[in-house]
Structure formats: structure tokens, C-alpha cells
């Protein structure tokens, strides 16, 4: 085969700084993942809850304005409690908070699935094919390598969790025609972004650490599923048998739930709905009926409430009744463990061959 027939030209183009060198790894990883049908399919499905959130926020914006567009469904809206119909703006924060919380509750499942689809290959493949020197012999550092790999997971998680939440927020804001919305709900935007970022960092580093433990990507995937499901099962078993406050901590995803509860200020939203319920026993009975789309358990009528009994939907779920700091410590501990695992498993080339 003839070689050198095209000659060789020296190259004098621009070279980017070292600070964003990790982006090259992320870009390549994202490109590679987007070639896979299963990833594209999963991302598309994961957008569905976000579309629903956006649609709900737009609908709520129109309800607040008493828009004539809602004329065809006015009959349905009549079933809302009188307090909400007469002053929807006073329930705005609670409704938005509930809607965002529901979005993240649903999208958490897709997040875990996406991490499973995207993550296992990230480091285990490099270990399998001895590709680490390919990176480290270039002008990048080990931290750039980790950041680049984390960026791949971050991209997909942000795409299905953070970006849709922000887009839905902007859409809801646009349809409310009221800048007061910004004042009432800005904490949701900040909370959503913070929650998404925590999920990216925690799930991302954990998956990278697991990925660095084996050269077999399937084993890595199975470990992730095992961690996800077994931690939930363990927490569930402990909650029914030991019945201690700390039992839910064993569930990886419950720690996210607890964090989200605080970041989105769900207790305040529950309080607001509780107030609505307390305004009258009869009205409260109406408030928890399934016709309100923002309450869970629709499709079946709640049991009659005795005086003084609070509807379960309006109280903090049993599995989230523990101090926030415990979840912070669990997730922080997992992060430290993941970082330590990465630093020991993905070694520099400063070792004997």
C-alpha cells in the first residue's frame, strides 16, 4: 500500500486552554451514546413527564387569568374547591411545588434507568481495552478524565431532569402573564437546578466508581440495578420490621426524595393544602377526592375521615420523616467513597508496568 502520497503538512492552528479539556471527553461520550438506539429512546420517553408538567403549568397559568380558552373545560374546573377557584393565585406556590415534586418523583425512575444505560461502559470499557494511557499521555489530567466521564452522565441527566424543569418553569412563567410568579416560585427554579445537580454528581460519581470496579460492563450494569432495587427492598423490609426512623436511609433513592422535599419546600405546600382541608370538614373531604388531578391516588375515593384525622396526602410521607442531615451525610459519604474508589481504581501511570 503506498503511503505518504498525500505528504504531511505542519499544523499551526489554535489550541484551547487546559481548563475545559474535559469537555472533549464529554462530547465524545455523548456522541457515542447518542448513536445507540436505546439511549435515544429512553431520553425521548423521559421527556414525557416534563411535557406533562409544562402542560399543567400552562393550564394553571390560564386558570389564574380566568382565560376564555378554558371555556370547554369549565365544567371540570367547577369541581375545584371554592377557595382555589376564587383565589387561585394564593395557591400558586403550593400547586407549582406539588407539580415540580411530582415531575422529579417520576423522572427519578428515568434518571436511574439512564444512568444504567449510559454509565457502565464509561470507565470499564477503557479498562477493558487498556485505553487509559490514551488519555493520560495527552495534555489532560486525571481530574479532567473523571470530569469528562461525569459530564457524559451529567449531560443526559440534565437533559431529562434539569432542562425540562427549567423549560417548564419558563413556559409556566410565560403563560402566567404575571411577574409575581417569579417572586412566588423562584425557589422552585433554584431548588430544581440544585436537586438536579446533586443527582448528577451523586449518581454520576457512584456509577463511575462502580464502572471502575470491573472490566465487564454488564456486571457494572447489574451492580447498579442491584444497588438501586436492593437498597429500596432493604429499606422497605427494615421499615416494616425494625420500624426505626433511620430505616429509610438504606434506600438510595429515598435520600434523594428527602433532599428534594426540603429543596422544593414541600412541607410548606402540604401545609397550604392542609389549611384548605381544615377550612371545613366537608370542604376538606372534597379537597382530597380524586377529581383533583394534583392529588395522588386518584381513581378511588378516600375513606371517610374522622374528626382530627389528616388525609395521608397532606402529611409528610412516613419514609421521609427523618432529619435532612442524615440524607446529606449518606449521599456525602457515598460521594467520598466513590471518589476514593475512582482514585484507587483508575490509577495514574506512576506505577511499575
Amino acid at each position, binding site marked *: 500500500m503506498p*503511503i505518504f502520497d498525500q505528504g*504531511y503538512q505542519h499544523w499551526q492552528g489554535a*489550541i484551547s486552554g487546559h481548563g475545559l479539556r474535559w469537555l472533549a*471527553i464529554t462530547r465524545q461520550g455523548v456522541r457515542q451514546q447518542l448513536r445507540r438506539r436505546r439511549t435515544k429512546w429512553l431520553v425521548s420517553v423521559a421527556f414525557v413527564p416534563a411535557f406533562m408538567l409544562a402542560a399543567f403549568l400552562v393550564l394553571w397559568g390560564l386558570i389564574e387569568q380566568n382565560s376564555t380558552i378554558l371555556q370547554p373545560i369549565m365544567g371540570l374546573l367547577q369541581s375545584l374547591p371554592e377557595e382555589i377557584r376564587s383565589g387561585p393565585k394564593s395557591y400558586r406556590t403550593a400547586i407549582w411545588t406539588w407539580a415540580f415534586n411530582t415531575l422529579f418523583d417520576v423522572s427519578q425512575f428515568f434518571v436511574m434507568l439512564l444512568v444504567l444505560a449510559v454509565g457502565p461502559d464509561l470507565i470499564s*470499557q477503557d479498562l477493558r481495552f*487498556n485505553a487509559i494511557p490514551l488519555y493520560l499521555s495527552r495534555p489532560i489530567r486525571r481530574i479532567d478524565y473523571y470530569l469528562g466521564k461525569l459530564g457524559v452522565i451529567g449531560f443526559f441527566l440534565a437533559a431529562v431532569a434539569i432542562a425540562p424543569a427549567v423549560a417548564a418553569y419558563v413556559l409556566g412563567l410565560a403563560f402566567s402573564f404575571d411577574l409575581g410568579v417569579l417572586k412566588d416560585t423562584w425557589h422552585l427554579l433554584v431548588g430544581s437546578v440544585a436537586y438536579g445537580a446533586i443527582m448528577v454528581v451523586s449518581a454520576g460519581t457512584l456509577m463511575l466508581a462502580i464502572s471502575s470496579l470491573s472490566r465487564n460492563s454488564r456486571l457494572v450494569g447489574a451492580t447498579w440495578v442491584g444497588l438501586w432495587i436492593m437498597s429500596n427492598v432493604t429499606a422497605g423490609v427494615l421499615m416494616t420490621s425494625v420500624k426505626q426512623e433511620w430505616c429509610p436511609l438504606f434506600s438510595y433513592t429515598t435520600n434523594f426524595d428527602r433532599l428534594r422535599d426540603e429543596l422544593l419546600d414541600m412541607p410548606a405546600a402540604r401545609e397550604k393544602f392542609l389549611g384548605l382541608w381544615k377550612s371545613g370538614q366537608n370542604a376538606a373531604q372534597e379537597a382530597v377526592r380524586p377529581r383533583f388531578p394534583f392529588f395522588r391516588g386518584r381513581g378511588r375515593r378516600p375513606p371517610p375521615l374522622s374528626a382530627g384525622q389528616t388525609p395521608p396526602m397532606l402529611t409528610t410521607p412516613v419514609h421521609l420523616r427523618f432529619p435532612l442531615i442524615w440524607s446529606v451525610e449518606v449521599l456525602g459519604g457515598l460521594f467520598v467513597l466513590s471518589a476514593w474508589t475512582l482514585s484507587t481504581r483508575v490509577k*495514574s501511570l506512576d506505577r511499575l508496568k
Partner: protein
Amino acid sequence: MLFDLKSIRKTYGRITALNDLSVVAPLGAVGLLGPNGAGKTTMIRTLLGLIRIDSGEGEVLGINIRRKPLQVRQIVGFVPEDECLFPGVEGVEFVAYAGELSGMGRTDALQRAHEVLDYVGLGEARYRKVDSYSTGMKQRLKIASAIVHDPKLVILDEPTNGMDPAGRIEVLELARDLCKNKGMSLLFSSHLLVDVEAVCDHVLVLGRGRLLAEGTIAELTRSERPIFEVRVKGDLADFSNRLARQGCTFEELDGVLHVELPDGRSQELLWSTASDAGEQIRMLKPLRNTLEEVFFKAVSELA
């Protein structure tokens, strides 16, 4: 100067990989020889700024390896011995990725990837997945990804390992072309001395983390005292007796005399002796050591 290492010491626990290694290598193609465990890989990693040395200082093309390792790697291309290729990636994508890791923009990296793939003779295979490449093609692909950012120094670690003769020759030609015609310096680490001889002008021989021998191949293979290979047309015994009377020492090997001249005498002595004996000299050339002999001599001295 290509690189300058001063009193480099590197230990891994009880094992001393580099033992007070000091070496200055000139620009051009430099061969790195040494038995297993001699410290070649550690020296290469030291040059790339990939390891933290215990003591000593060093520079590659004037850049300090301790203080500016990223800058060193920016101007150096490395062709590792391991395969280092992950599957499912096209050749052009792989090389462009290497360019991006070196800081090139995506468009520049892609354009440059096409150029260097043409140069190494993989233009036709650029859109094939790298896992379908032959060993020789993979080696050339690694070279392409090492030169994509136009480095000033290319380090090749055992580049001809496991290759068929044709592929080996192509890689050697490529390495020679990079050095002789494209102005790049090479550090060529290999167990195959003939490959080093084919590409390099200068050689470093390492053993137990120390420099055992260094110099140009011409210098190293030159005998300490001039020895000539001589073949004559007529009576070899008579000619050799005449040489002995002139103070020469000799050895006969397959009809060829290896003659060591006495101090202060030149090859003119051979001509005059032949003239006196009425002999015709059919071959006369200075005897040179092979690189293999140099290598074994250096290593055996260490032992």
C-alpha cells in the same frame, strides 16, 4: 537538545526504576535500548511528566518535566505499546478525538485527522471501525493519533511488536520519514535492534535504571582500535605471515582476514604489504561492531 535528564531517581517501594539517570539526547531519531526492567518505560513516562520522580530534574525541548508536564505532553506525541483502541469508533473519529484531547477544536481535529490518515496510508480505511483493522493498520492509526497535533517529539514504544514483515517495514519507513523529512524528533524504544538501526542515528542503552552506553550508532559501532576486513586474490597464508612480520595481529574467518594494525600505522601498510607480496587486494573495509554487539557488551558489563 531533545531532552536533558539530570540525576533522575525513581523508586517504587524497594525497586529502583531509575537510578541517578543523567542523559542528554540530541534532536533527531534516538533509539532507546535495554533489557526488560531496564527502566525504559519509566524513562518514557518521566519524559511525559506522568510520574513523580524522587529527585533530579529534567527538560524536554526546554520545558521542565516537573513543573510543566501538561506543556510537555502538548508538544509530544506518544505511541503506546498497548493497543489502547476502544471498539465501535471509526478511524477518523479516533484520530480526531486524539486531536480534541490535545486541545484542537472539533473542526480542526477532524480536518487534521483526515490529513494524517492519508499520510499514514489509512485514507481508504478512515471510515472503518477500528476493531476491524489489522495489527499493522492499528499501529499506523496510533501513529496518526500521536502526530495529529503536530508534535515536535514522537515517542514510539515498541512500535513494530507483533507485526508482519511488510507492516513492520511500513512503520519503519513512516518513522524514518517523520524524522528525516518532516522535522520531528523520535524516541524509538524497541527490543529489535535492527529496527532501531534502521530508524535512529543516536542510541541510548539503559540497564537497571542507569545509562550504560550512548552515542551515535556510527560511534558506538566503531571499533576502539581500527580493524580491517581484507580479502586477497592469491595465497592468504603468505599474506598473513607478511602482515604478522609487520606487527599486525589477525584472525581468519571464511577466507577473510580481520587485521588489527599496530599503533601508529594506517591502512597504507596493508597496501604496501600486498604490493610486496605481489597480491591483489579484492576487498578492504574497516570492520564495525553491530549494534547487537554494542548492546550485549554494555549489558554484560553491567552484569
